[in-house]
């Protein structure tokens, strides 16, 4: 029987619970420094309690001690920064592999996409494995029996928080996405893409340099190997060359559209429809055609 251990800070773990249920064994959530009552739909909750102001990352040793995974068990962790830290501590404690990119998780093996998705490996789950995967949404179901362990945290304190004025987006649920890349020369020019997105009811996304470095869009809008992974009905890539590290995050989209001035841009190889041209003239024309 494959038992599942879920390590979590945020209750957005529905996909992990679904996997645990499909595997059939007991599903235990080890919850770090947050209200355990929000973790519905699991069999058992181990709450690692910490004083106010201690970041979840500082609870890593207590979390690692609580995950008593046996041979054949699987440890699932949502791919979010605080939770990855806990996953690494668990992997080191168990001497277990830690892998991202699991496509299929079965009772005996898992299919792992590796190296930017260029290859897939089937790995044995005979020994405990820590899999870092998309967490999903908030779970539903019954509240589970919960036990509390007092943490022995590392000496770290959150001294201040500067909340974003920008609302968080959940691109994984988006049906239509308009994504912008380095073809845009200035932040103001993104308005062209925003107009198209508004016209078709799409969410705005981007390639990595637009979110980091230039900082024109929030980090949670960039698509790629270490960013968001999306699968909308239509993905419209504007001024994105299509490097592997980007396309791995959108390759499951149903229909892909590319607009790029370089006819040799790799994005066209993975596209259904394309226009070779200047985004500054083509994008407003698409918006006009929609209207």
């Amino acid at each position, binding site marked *: 029987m494959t038992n599942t251990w879920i390590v979590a800070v945020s209750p957005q773990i529905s996909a992990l619970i679904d996997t645990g249920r499909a595997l059939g064994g007991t599903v235990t959530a080890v919850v770090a420094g947050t209200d355990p009552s929000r973790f519905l739909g699991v069999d058992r909750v181990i709450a690692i309690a910490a004083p106010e102001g201690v970041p979840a990352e500082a609870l890593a040793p207590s979390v690692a001690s609580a995950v008593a995974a046996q041979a054949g068990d699987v440890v699932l962790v949502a791919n979010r920064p605080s939770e*990855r*830290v806990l996953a690494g501590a668990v992997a080191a404690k168990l*001497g277990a592999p830690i892998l*991202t990119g699991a496509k299929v998780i079965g009772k005996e093996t898992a299919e792992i996409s590796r190296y930017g998705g260029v290859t897939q490996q089937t790995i044995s789950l005979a020994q405990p494995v820590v899999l870092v995967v998309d967490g999903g949404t908030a779970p539903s179901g019954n509240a589970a029996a919960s036990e509390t362990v007092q943490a022995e945290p590392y000496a770290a304190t959150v001294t201040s928080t500067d909340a974003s004025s920008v609302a968080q987006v959940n691109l994984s649920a988006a049906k239509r996405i308009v994504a912008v890349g380095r073809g845009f020369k200035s932040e103001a020019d993104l308005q062209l893409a925003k107009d198209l997105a508004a016209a078709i009811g799409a969410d705005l996304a981007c390639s990595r340099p637009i979110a980091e470095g230039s900082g024109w869009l929030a980090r949670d809008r960039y698509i790629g190997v270490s960013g968001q992974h999306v699968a909308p009905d239509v993905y419209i890539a504007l001024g994105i060359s299509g490097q592997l*590290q980007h396309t791995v995050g959108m390759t499951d989209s149903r229909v892909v*559209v590319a607009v790029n001035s370089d006819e040799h841009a790799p994005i066209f190889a*993975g596209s259904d429809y394309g226009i070779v041209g200047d985004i500054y003239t083509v994008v407003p024309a698409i918006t006009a055609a929609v209207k």
Partner: protein
Amino acid sequence: MTIVVAYKYAANPQDASVGSDGRIDWSRAKETVSEYDPVAIQVGRQLADAAGSELVGITVGTTAANSSLARKGALSRGLDRAVIVADDAVRDWAPTRVGSVLAALVERIGDAAIVLTGDASVDEGAQVMPTVIAGYLGWPCFLEVISVAQTADGWELVQAHEGGTRTIALAGAAVVSVTTDATEARTPGMKDILAAGKKPAEEVALADLDAAEVDLTVTAHSRPATKAREHQVFSGDDAPAQLVAALRSVGVL
């Protein structure tokens, strides 16, 4: 006190070829200091200069990681010296095992106050190596850190967090992964590359380090099925209209 940067000498999978059996042929892909690691080295340089301490790079890779080109590539970016494990045996190791060796190198240096890493490696892109190193060292770990400053008893970090930021004060040593835009990585000039040739790089044998036993059994390789695409390119003045018509006909607009 020493500032340590863990870097990876790796190739971009985009440049590798994948056989029909899913096995990767890396022979034509050129390895370099991984894409985002120069940012971590530069952050380390600034911290080391501010504290008057030494900046040491550590890496665990195949024999290529200790080539003259690899050593110069890393040292020219601002390291004072490098400690290198270069053994082809590590190619198929689980990341956890590689992390245990990196942690062993940190312990060997002895007085490390912080271990910095880049945001993600160019080949795996998994963003887990710093967390495993921290797990083996028994140190706290923070990812997506925008800025690092030394304090009397440890470090103050500003971390990207839930769309905003938060500031964390911590006592003692830590493993910290910096964002790709934490600072601007310097492009080494000819002077840096020449100076790098004179900087010390020590190779440590794998046998002299205590690597964790980690069982990762790969039972099969396969080449992922690529989704069939239409590859239809519209041209001419009415290309935008043709595109919109096509998207409507397949029911996505």
